[in-house]
């Protein structure tokens, strides 16, 4: 493996790909989808989480004037609890012996963070002291994930698929233009050529995935990045295979539609709670996106999802071994792949 050579090959792949008309659509599609969904469902910038508070509470006035949360006042603590439980309010602030901040079950982690920050600064201002006020938090049992959260897996899989698709397209184009032949009589080995493309696809898929997770406020755990990495790696393996098996770009696009449904199935399972959730577990991408949702929305930790990481890494290994085999066979003679 020759690292400087792979870097030069990857630089060429970037240079060629960004000039291809399809590149713009590949990038724009998931980002536009994210923007449309987040704007439509109103969590991006525009809307703020809603909070219920007792009308006689000292912090009420401070909270209303801060603008960080949308405040409504209620006659009693019971009324506040009721408003949160019914879903009218994302959170409720209740004063008793100490302050209790109650979250609705289907709030996102970023909404909860915003509520907590607004409440703690308002309470500090109201008490007029520099001492921090103790707030105990409580969360109602989630009634289910919000629609926006349920759409995250769908978008993240698109990001990963774009990473794989870039590789397929780039390989198919180099085959169609016969530029691969020129590379194979250069000092670059087939492994270098393939590795460069894989790295480019991995990088692009990761950047898109991180952007989408960030825009959805779901970048709250380092483990999410680990799952994203191995999830994108899976589609990279698929992309490599498609790049040698498909005969043309039209062929690729036509078959991609069908294959996309398989990759997206676990996302559909999360999107539509009517579908039994075990069905999703039959598909590899489940082990990629389900943990991301558990980690960011349901307070799961490594202990809860480690086995899904193991399954995902095994899926990666399987798909990459298969890709290496397909590459070797389909391009045998033309492509003497060294042992991977």
């Amino acid at each position, binding site marked *: 493996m020759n690292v400087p*050579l792979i870097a*030069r*090959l990857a630089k*060429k792949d970037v*240079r*060629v790909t960004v*000039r*291809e008309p399809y590149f713009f659509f590949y990038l724009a599609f998931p980002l536009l989808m994210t923007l449309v969904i987040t704007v439509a469902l109103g969590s991006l910038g525009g809307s703020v989480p809603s909070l219920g508070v007792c009308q006689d509470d000292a912090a009420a006035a401070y909270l209303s004037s801060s603008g960080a949360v949308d405040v409504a006042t209620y006659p009693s603590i019971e009324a506040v609890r009721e408003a949160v439980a019914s879903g009218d309010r994302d959170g409720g602030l209740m004063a008793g012996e100490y302050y209790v901040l109650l979250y609705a079950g289907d709030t996102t982690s970023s909404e909860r963070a915003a509520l907590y920050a607004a409440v703690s600064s308002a309470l500090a201002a109201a008490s007029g002291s520099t001492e921090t006020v103790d707030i105990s938090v409580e969360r109602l049992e989630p009634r289910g994930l919000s629609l926006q959260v349920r759409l995250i897996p769908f978008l993240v899989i698109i990001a990963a698929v774009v990473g794989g698709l870039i590789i397929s397209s780039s390989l198919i184009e180099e085959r169609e*233009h*016969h*530029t691969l*032949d*020129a590379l*194979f*009589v*250069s*000092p*670059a*080995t087939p492994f270098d050529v393939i590795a460069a493309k894989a790295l480019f696809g991995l990088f692009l898929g990761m950047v898109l995935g991180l952007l989408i997770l960030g825009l959805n406020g779901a970048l709250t755990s380092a483990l999410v990045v680990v799952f994203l990495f191995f999830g994108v790696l899976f589609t990279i393996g698929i992309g490599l295979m498609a790049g040698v098996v498909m005969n043309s770009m039209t062929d690729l696009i036509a078959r991609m539609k069908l294959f996309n449904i398989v990759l997206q199935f676990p996302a559909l399972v999360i999107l539509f709670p009517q579908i039994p959730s075990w069905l999703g577990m039959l598909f590899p991408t489940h082990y990629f996106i389900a943990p991301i949702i558990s980690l960011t929305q349901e307070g799961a930790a490594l202990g809860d999802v480690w086995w899904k990481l193991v399954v995902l890494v095994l899926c990666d290994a399987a798909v990459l071994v298969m890709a290496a085999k397909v590459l070797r066979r389909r391009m045998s*003679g*033309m492509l*003497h792949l060294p042992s991977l």
Partner: protein
Amino acid sequence: MTVDNPYKVRNTYVTGYSGSAHVMMIEATGLTYRYGDFVAVDDISFSVAEGEILGFLGPNGAGKSTTVKMLTGQLVPARGVATVLGTDVSRHPKAVHERIGVCFEEKNLYPRMTVRENLQFFADLFDRSVDVDELIRKVDLEKWASERAEALSKGMQQRVMVARALVNDPDVLFLDEPTSGLDPVSAEQIREIIRAEKTRGKTVFLTTHNMAEADALSDRVAFINEGRIVALDTPENLKLRLGRRLLRVRTRAGDDFAEEVLPLDDDATPDRMGALLRAGGIATVHTLEATLEEVFIQLTGRKL
């Protein structure tokens, strides 16, 4: 000058390269390639000495490109060994690739990269410093250096491909039909580049189905037909070996032309020629040696 044994000349010719002490830059031994059951190249052997241009002449489908691909490590021979620069190409393709240049039959530039980017990219893959601008000058494309390859004419693209083959200053050049389908001016420009490389002592393996080109450029020519080499010699010897050793003399008397054909190897010919010369009135004298094309047809029964 009469030549009684063409093989003698051939031997003399080969030892004419003894300045480089029998350094064989390319050696093919029993090369065979099959596409499925179809034998595209059938047990061919030859060698190319340092500084030599070998013309590989044959009709479409003869197996020229398949041979180039085996010699350059793109295809692994079913049987036989290809050695380039003393290295077995199938075993150590990358060692060979460092020191050879390949110009492909099919156009294969990165269409969306500029001429300079195309060349710079390949230059960067080699572990040596390359003056890409010098290379662009060499193929006379300074004005087009910043244009995308896809915007160039076929002839210009072909020159970029030749330049790319030269990017590592290779010791051996493989050119697969570099002038095929080009206009005469572009074709001649490429022939000039090939001659210049030969002058610099480089070895060239040139495939073509253009008999005149093979004749003009090659030190030796291999005729290839249906995957086999049917003849391999200098163009002169090939023409002599199979051509007719005849002299055609046209004489003029007033407005009337007369024509006489004299066999060169006949004892009576010197006297007859002398008589014609003394009589005056000779308009033209031609030898009737064959063209390479005629020799090819005679050997294979098919046209180029």
